[in-house]
């Protein structure tokens, strides 16, 4: 009790002393954001025919799948009664934004992502089912779902269907992450969260983080494989990252300016919080290091002619900082929204534990897990069969 009281400044309602949502709930929007962003990058190629990003198409889809599989885990770990979580499917409360989660998630996982990946990989799966040996052969045979037809007509249908699914997938990806923003944005009791801009801010930050992740992954994996990085591809991705980031930053600044100018009853409390307890994660990490610096770097690559090596380095630094910045943004929303009292009269502190159910250790493991899954997926379904996918077609 004493330790909690030391962390409190001013007056908090007694029941507010304990923070309700921990670092695991920070991870959740971060991870779903990466999913939505990676998928939207993939659909650039498919729907908008941005041919130059083709080398990352399959990698982006697999990345989205790897992160999507992990997305519900932090929630499960956080629940007081995870064994009851199935009730969200069986007896959903229709007025609850959270109850939507299960359905949007299932829809996105099964109807959009898995189906699109399967259709795109079907010829490869059939080929692998015929050529591989040992237990893997059975895995691939199972994955064909009994469909071995590789006739031109069949492939044409696959392609057409894949296109339609991507078309459905884009609004689904928007829905997946938009509603995560809505979960926070619709809480009228909390002025730090309650804004109609929240879903759209979440969405664009998701696009930004997903693009940055795939860009970095592509550069790292290509290096590890000892291949040449396709600069036309990376340049294009970086340009899209830059555009998305400008929209994201404008929206966040709009929110900020609006809050400052309107200065409603909560303003002094939130203003004080941002200038004290949230100064490091919000001003320094999120806005300066995580937004202004990468935006500046990306802008530099757009206006100054840099060598390929310099561009690669700039993209790598900008991408990494972007990911840090978006993580800080999630942190500042989730944790920041709980540091002040709803009485607007006091503040508390978030003390993160380490090796507990909701501590730093499980959070780190949960962030490593998608990469392990991605490694397995890449092994099972190589995104670059015979180097074919690596070569962007001539313009």
């Amino acid at each position, binding site marked *: *009790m004493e330790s*909690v009281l030391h962390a409190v400044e001013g*007056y*908090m*309602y*007694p*029941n*507010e*002393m*304990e923070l*309700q*949502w921990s670092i695991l709930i920070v991870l959740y929007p971060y991870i779903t954001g990466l999913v939505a962003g990676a998928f939207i990058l993939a659909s650039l190629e498919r729907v908008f025919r941005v041919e130059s990003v083709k080398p990352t198409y399959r990698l982006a889809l697999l990345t989205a799948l790897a992160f999507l599989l992990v997305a519900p885990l932090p*929630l499960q770990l*956080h*629940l*007081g*009664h*995870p064994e*009851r*979580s199935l*009730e*969200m499917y069986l*007896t*959903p*409360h229709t*007025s*609850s*934004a*959270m*109850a939507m*989660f299960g359905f949007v998630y299932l829809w996105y996982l099964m109807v959009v992502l898995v189906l699109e990946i399967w259709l795109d990989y079907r010829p490869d799966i059939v080929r692998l089912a015929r050529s591989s040996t040992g237990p893997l052969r059975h895995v691939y045979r199972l994955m064909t779902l009994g469909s071995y037809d590789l006739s031109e007509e069949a492939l044409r249908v696959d392609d057409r269907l894949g296109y339609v699914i991507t078309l459905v997938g884009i609004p689904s990806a928007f829905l997946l992450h938009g509603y995560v923003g809505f*979960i926070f944005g*619709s*809480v*009228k*009791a*909390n002025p730090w969260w309650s804004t109609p801009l929240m879903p759209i801010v979440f969405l664009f930050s998701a696009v930004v983080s997903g693009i940055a992740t795939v860009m970095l992954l592509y550069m790292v994996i290509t290096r590890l494989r000892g291949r040449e990085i396709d600069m036309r591809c990376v340049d294009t991705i970086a340009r899209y990252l830059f555009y998305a980031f400008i929209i994201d930053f404008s929206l966040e600044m709009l929110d900020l300016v609006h809050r400052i100018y309107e200065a409603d009853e909560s303003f002094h409390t939130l203003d004080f919080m941002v200038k004290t307890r949230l100064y490091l994660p919000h001003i320094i990490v999120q806005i300066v290091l995580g937004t202004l610096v990468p935006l500046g770097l990306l802008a530099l690559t757009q206006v100054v002619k840099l060598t390929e090596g310099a561009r690669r380095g700039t993209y790598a630094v900008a991408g990494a900082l972007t990911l840090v910045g978006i993580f800080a943004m999630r942190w500042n929303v989730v944790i920041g*929204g*709980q540091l002040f*009292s*709803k*009485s*607007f*009269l006091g503040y508390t502190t978030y003390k993160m534990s380490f090796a507990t159910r909701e501590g730093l250790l499980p959070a780190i493991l949960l962030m490593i897990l998608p990469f392990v899954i991605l490694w397995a997926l890449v092994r099972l379904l190589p995104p670059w069969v015979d180097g074919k996918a690596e070569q962007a077609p001539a313009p």
Partner: protein
Amino acid sequence: MNHDRRDFLARSGKLLLLTGAAQVAFEAVLRGEPESAPNYRTTDHWWAMTIDVEKCIGCGNCVRACKEENDVPREPFFFRTWVERYHVPEGDIEHPEVDSPNGGYDGFPEKYRSGDGAKSFFVPKLCNQCAHSPCVQVCPVGATFESPDGVVLVDRTYCLGCRYCVQACPYGCRFIDPRTETVDKCSLCYHRITKGLTTACCETCPTEARVLGDLKNPKDPIHEFLRTHKVQVLKPQMATGSKTYYNGLDGSVR
């Protein structure tokens, strides 16, 4: 014969202890279905509470009685009801000094002197039993709900422990019971009011600062109180349909 006699003694014992009607109700309550008690119809009631800030002396009886009656965790920071002490410098309602040591459980140690140019008063807080509860709205499985008689209740055998409702309550009235990992809140002593009793906090209030009322009962004194006092609810801008009415609520209270 023997069995009959024992039966008779048990029945008449209960009859003596409780009155006839209460006995029938008690059996339904023991079954965990107070609403099925023949003399309690949920649709016949619409519960509310009035709190007279002028009358509260900050003794903490309500807080202690509530914790005792409802088995609320004793350690601090878990409260179904608590009392706040406000100290407002003259005219500065935006910067009140507020404290609530242990929720008022142990009363309030003397802290302010009269004549320091400020006013002091106590504000008891509890779930406002909102008619449009933000907490009920967000529950993903409907484990928390508004009963037909206007009480916001929790089914703890159904609660996931996601804590969304705790975030959604503008008044800080909910907490997670560390023993069950499920949410808990004021139930308006539902087990008592369905038996015709008042809540533990109202029962023990020495000054009748808190009074339970049934808005559907035309003879309930709450009507007289609401007619003759200028009442206010907490955070009216939240539009939650609060049914906890305060008399003498200062503008500094939030």
